[in-house]
């Protein structure tokens, strides 16, 4: 087990290097820093001095890979690749365009993101699994049919509609909770209820349908027939046998997204004005703050790889037949 984990962690290194290379190519090779400076400063009427100043401020005035002007190890370290890309491995992301430290900003914003994403995830999983179980319990009936129709209709609605419609209905028409904003500490719940409810509803259609097919696959297995033959009631069969076994594919499917919960949700956070990482990313995209976008790409891929490893571990936890070697 330990040796396996170590190997997986080592395998993560080349993947992270690959991610790093892709982002580096995207941000520095496709466009030279000069192009980016010109775009940021406005394409017209920009002086070479202004471009040079912009580059020096952000440290983009160095060569890409190899600095012939520097001496010794400086030939490698005094380059954009080393300073901007390789330093990410130490979680040193440099400063955003507004001068703030990106790593500090990320630490500050993780809390609000998690406060939104974690309840959404837990409640969403619970709601989808319950709905799918109800459909499976009444399978091949009108309830099941219209339930699936409802699922397909719900997954055909744009998530923007859920957000805009929910804000309008609950905050504006009924005035139950504030329309957007955030408060630190426990007061945050008033601001979090609406986004959590909307995200859960927006996700329930596709998830419940997906879980329903998993349950139906499980229900046609031999052990279910055996359980029924023993004389167990349908309720016991469903909850004690089918649910337990179906949780294997469901859990392993959702474990991979758990680490990514830290990243927050782009849409929901920006709509509800929650100062998490999602809205941070959106603001950076709109302000074309490349340093922040790069940092978020890196963190996102680290979390994804953590998710993959957690998935492997969760296999052994929920299914004793699987052993990691």
């Amino acid at each position, binding site marked *: 087990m330990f040796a396996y984990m170590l190997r997986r962690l080592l395998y993560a290194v*080349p*993947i*992270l290097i*690959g*991610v790093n290379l*892709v*982002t580096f190519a*995207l*941000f520095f090779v*496709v*466009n030279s820093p000069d*192009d*980016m400076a*010109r*775009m940021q400063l406005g*394409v017209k009427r920009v002086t070479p001095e202004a471009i040079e100043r912009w580059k020096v401020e952000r440290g983009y005035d160095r060569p890409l890979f190899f600095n012939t002007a520097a001496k010794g190890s400086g030939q490698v370290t005094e380059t954009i690749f080393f300073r901007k890309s390789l330093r990410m491995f130490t979680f040193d992301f440099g400063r955003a365009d507004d001068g703030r430290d990106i790593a500090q900003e990320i630490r500050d914003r993780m809390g609000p993101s998690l406060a939104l994403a974690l309840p959404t995830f837990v409640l969403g999983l619970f709601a989808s699994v319950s709905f799918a179980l109800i459909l499976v319990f009444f399978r091949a009936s009108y309830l099941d049919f219209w339930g699936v129709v409802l699922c*397909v*209709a719900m*997954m*055909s*609605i*744009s*998530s*923007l*509609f859920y957000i*805009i419609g929910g*804000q*309008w209905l609950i905050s504006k028409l009924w005035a139950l909770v504030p329309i957007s904003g955030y408060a630190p500490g426990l007061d945050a719940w008033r601001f979090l209820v609406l986004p959590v409810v909307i995200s859960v509803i927006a996700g329930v259609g596709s998830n419940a349908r997906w879980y329903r097919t998993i349950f139906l696959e499980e229900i046609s297995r031999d052990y279910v027939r055996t359980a029924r033959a023993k004389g167990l009631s349908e309720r016991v069969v469903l909850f004690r046998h089918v649910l337990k076994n179906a949780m294997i594919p469901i859990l392993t499917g959702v474990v991979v997204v758990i680490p*990514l919960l830290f*990243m927050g949700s*782009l*849409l929901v956070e*920006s709509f509800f004005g929650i100062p998490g990482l999602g809205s941070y*990313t*959106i603001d950076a*995209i*709109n302000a*074309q703050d*490349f340093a922040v*976008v*790069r940092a*978020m*790409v890196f963190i*996102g*891929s680290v979390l*994804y*790889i953590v998710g993959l490893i957690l998935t492997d571990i969760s296999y052994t936890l929920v299914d004793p037949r699987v052993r990691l070697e």
Partner: protein
Amino acid sequence: MGFLPVVLWTDALFFVLLAIGAATIVHVRREAPLRAAWGRVGSRAAGMASAVILLAFLVIGIADSLHFRAQLSAANGAAESAPVAHSSEVLSALDVLLSSLRTRVEKTYSAPFATALYARETVELPGGGQSRIYPRLAWGGAHLGEATGERDADVARRIATGLAGAAGGWIAVAAILVLMLARRRGNGMSEAVRALWRGETALAWRAALFTLACVLVVTILAIRLAPYYHVFGTDKVGQDVLYLSLKSVRTALIIGTLTTLVMLPFAVALGIMAGYLGGWVDDVIQYIYTVLNAIPGVLLIAAAVLMMQVVIDTHPQWFATAAERADARLLALCLILGITSWTGLCRLLRGETLKLRELEYVQAARAFGVGTAAILRRHVLPNVMHIVMIALVMDFSGLVLAEAVLSYVGIGVDPTTISFGTMINAARAELAREPMVWWSLMAAFAFMFVLVLSANLFADVVRDAFDPRRS
């Protein structure tokens, strides 16, 4: 009046896709198993109904993909031999059909079927002095003159005649269908009508006719009403929302289909190679798609779109017209979405090929000394095509929804491209207004819902028909 045809990149690729579609139809008609699978699609009511709606959207999309630049009328006194100048505005066949909608621009917002603007304005009275009134629309209900009170009666009359027209058109189509069915079945007309009514035909024509009736009613009502009123209201700059919604259809179709088209060659080639060849090829391909998967999709798209925008902005000389520039960004978006979405299909194909590789007929081919390329082309590729087919239809709805979200976030299509996302984006600023400007949002969401819902239903039916595990 002459015109200069303009073939945008997305137009060309869209027509390539249509040609592939036509070739597929010819191919399917020859192959009995494929024909049976598509027959299963057609025998399902949901399949036929959604196909009718998708076809209607496709017609709009095709009409909107025939682009041209109109010839400018020669200036007075210009020599006969002077070079012909063309307008820099790129129009499409759909624009010509909808020219009454496109050119009837109001000043600003107006509600559906309104005859006056949405907001009060201060106007100078003829006899001096000022007054705050709701100004009369320039075009909405213009034929009524000052008798705006007769609007409801006028609308009702047009709806009634429109419904009659729709019923007539529908009966004509139904009659043709009955004739065809009667000829094919070889027993009389009344027998054909009865089979149709009871849903006993091989293909679910009853569902198709029912859907067609709905489509016809909506279309003919729009044709009857849209030239006289703004049926979905107007937006901030006074453009007709119905026109914007119809124009958005093409953007949605392009994103939904071209994305899959551009990533298909990579996904198929790499997936099959990884599965069949194994060894280091497999390792390399798996490494590539793990890396691409590891980058969160939205962020990769954001980064790539930002970079594309810089490229487009720093090379204005590449594009002759604004439409070409917007088109380049649309195509770039398709490519980027393709890069982030091919990994799933690639992994599926790899898994399937791993299974196929061990089957007897592939083993036999190898024993006979058939080359690897020939085995892949002749034995592996045809047997994984159902997965490609399913992926193509399954991805469509997700991509349409994704376009709206991405455009909303600002990393989608060019702001000048009309799409559902840009419509929603433009409307969101007005949500806080009292009373709310709801019509352009609702129009965008309604169109998207119908398109995505029919795509989802169609995808489900196709998957059920083609997936061997599900039959």
